[in-house]
């Protein structure tokens, strides 16, 4: 098909969609819409993960991000009743500066790619590293200690969130 393989087609479409949805996240005026677009972006990224044989991460990504984090966002928005556009018309200057700064950064990053070697992901044929079995092995042997620390971090975050979120006792 037009000289591209099916994988390349899938990559192109997913990338296009991801960028489109990401832009929509930034530019939509309603926070609820933003959340939904972000979920779509995450699905596209999960597709990329699948494309790179990281099946476990893809699933975890959808479960954690789309399923938990974004639901939390929605929850907060609904709870605070922010689902309408509260943002007043902002001044044009900060936005212009922001876009110029972003453009400069993109320019620099892309510029740094220029002239680098073209390495194909296929050349290594690493198809087995993303499996649950393999990741589990690595996670529970080499990274066991950080893994345990992460659990403590989550616990601390949970306690912290409750402490911050509860109403002060008068």
């Amino acid at each position, binding site marked *: 098909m037009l000289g591209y393989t099916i994988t390349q087609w899938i990559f192109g479409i997913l990338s296009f969609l991801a960028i489109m949805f990401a832009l929509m996240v930034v530019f939509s005026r309603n926070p609820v819409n933003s959340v939904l677009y972000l979920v779509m972006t995450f699905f596209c990224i999960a597709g990329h993960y699948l494309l790179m044989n990281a099946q476990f991460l893809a699933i975890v990504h959808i479960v954690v991000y789309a399923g938990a984090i974004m639901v939390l966002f929605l929850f907060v928005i609904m709870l605070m009743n922010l689902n309408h556009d509260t943002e007043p018309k902002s001044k044009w200057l*900060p936005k212009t500066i922001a876009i110029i*700064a972003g453009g*400069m950064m993109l320019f620099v990053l892309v510029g*740094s790619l220029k002239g680098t070697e073209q390495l194909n992901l296929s050349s290594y044929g690493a198809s087995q590293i993303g499996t649950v079995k393999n990741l589990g092995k690595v996670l529970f042997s080499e990274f066991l200690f950080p893994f345990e620390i992460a659990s403590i971090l989550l616990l601390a975050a949970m306690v912290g969130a409750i402490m911050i979120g509860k109403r002060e006792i008068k």
Partner: protein
Amino acid sequence: MIKLIALVPLFPLIGFLINGFFGKKLSKSLSGIIASVSILASFVLSVLIFVELQGSAQKSHIIEAFSWINSGTLHIPFEFLVDPLSSLFLLIITGIGFLIHVYSIGYMHDDEGFSRFFTYLNLFVFFMLLLVLGNNYLIMFVGWEGVGLCSYLLIGFWFKNTAYNNAARKAFVMNRIGDLGFLLGIILIFVTFGSISFNEVFDKAGTVGTSVITAIALLLFIGAMGKSAQIPLYTWLPDAMAGPTPVSALIHAATMVTAGIYMVTRSNIFYSISDVASEVVAITGVVTALFAATIGLLQNDIKKILAYSTVSQLGLMFLGLGVGAYSSAVFHVTTHAFFKALLFLGAGSVIHAMGGEQDIRKMGGLSNHIKITFWTMFIGTIAISGIPPFSGFFSKDEILAHTYEHSPVLWFLGMVTSMLTVFYMCRMLFLTFYGKFRGTHEQEHHLHESPKSMTIPLMVLALLAAAGGLLGLPEFLHLPNWMHHNLESVIKRPDPMTMDHDKELILMGLAVLAAGTVWFFAHMMYRVNKVLPAAKEEQLKPWQKLIYNKYWVDEIYDAVIRKPLDFLSDIFYKFMDIAMIDGIVNGVGSAVKGVGSVVRLAQQGSIGFYVISMVLGVVFIVLLTFLIK
């Protein structure tokens, strides 16, 4: 027992810590007892160690307490050296130290700084022990500085008096000048030999050039000059009498000021190798001895007389060191410690009886009122005058005999010094204890003998001053000269006396004759003719004025050294300090302030602005990495 050497300095340290931290909560008697007992414990241990050392064949023991400095190739262990020299000094320090502690309990009884006094005194003993026990120059230096500090604290003990504080500061500064020389000497030793341990340095001393050895010996001697009050750094010692009298006795007569003698004796090989250095030592010593003795002739403060006498006797010791009579000098240190401590404590007792009066013009006829003090001081005076068989005779004679062999001129000067010594000591004794009482009626009524805690140390010291000569009987009597024999292992290149015995006997007879004549002369002058010192300076003859004012040395130092220094400091203060350094420092400050007041405006609290700045910063950094590549 020798293995327990570390305990000897430890006891005073414990006493210092207890008195230092809890002194205010302890009762006076308890505070004094803790201090005295800690020294007594050290003394007992020192005696045991001394006896064990005398009995053992090995004369030098090195005990490592712990590894002190370990850095790269530099390795300095904290080692104690126990040998005849250090063990003798241990006995002097702890023995006389203990007596003076006991004396102080009585002397300082009404002072509000009682426990503070004992704190300092214990700390002093600790540092002094460290000084004599160290097996390398660095430990010696630590002790050296420590005793200097304690001396400063104790001279300025009554810190509410500005004059006393100035005296303390003067002592500190003078000592600092000497210490610099000592420190440079240590550095030069380390550079030359790569080590500062005594045994290693002394073993290698013969292998390097004489000029280096001379430099080392002279630098070390500068340190000794400061600590042992030799010309030109002697002026602090008479002023140091501002401290309490027991301090004068312990620090400024018996122990600390002899640290210079100890150090030169310890390093005797340098002086044996370098003729120039030993010549300098001998000449400095004899000039100081003569100079201080003449000043002592016309002083009216009882403690000042003794102070100049100390300077003079220290000069004699250095004369002995300079002519190679190391063991004789140490012998004189020992006997001098006995009789000078005795004289100072006796003077303290007199001052105590007089209710704080120190001027001998206002004393007189005290022998009837304070008998014990009188008799003990009488013994002390005979001992220092060099009349046999009291201790001063033997030690002084040994030094003078060595000197005669070395150079008759120096011997003559030494003889003159000892004659002057007899004169001013007799003058002090006669003016204080004989004749009529010249003080106020109230003072006469107040006269009383000191408490037991003060008189018992006096009596013990009087016994020692009388019998101390037994430690070093002259050889021609075919009696064992214990002192000489004992220190054999310490003196690396001994210079034995080759004088025949008849000659020595003649010299000895001359010395006794001279002392007797001067004593008689003083007797005629002050007891028979009842000459009294002039009450006012105006009545003095010009040459007397010169001596009375100590040759105006202090004033000369003031004009030649202090004034130009003040002037220079003033210039540096105005131009360097205020204009340059302050200008730079304040300039930096005001520049930061100025920039801050402008940049502050950027800190407006808008998150968007911060984020944009951050992104631009990232862009800038990434660009920079490309540009640098």
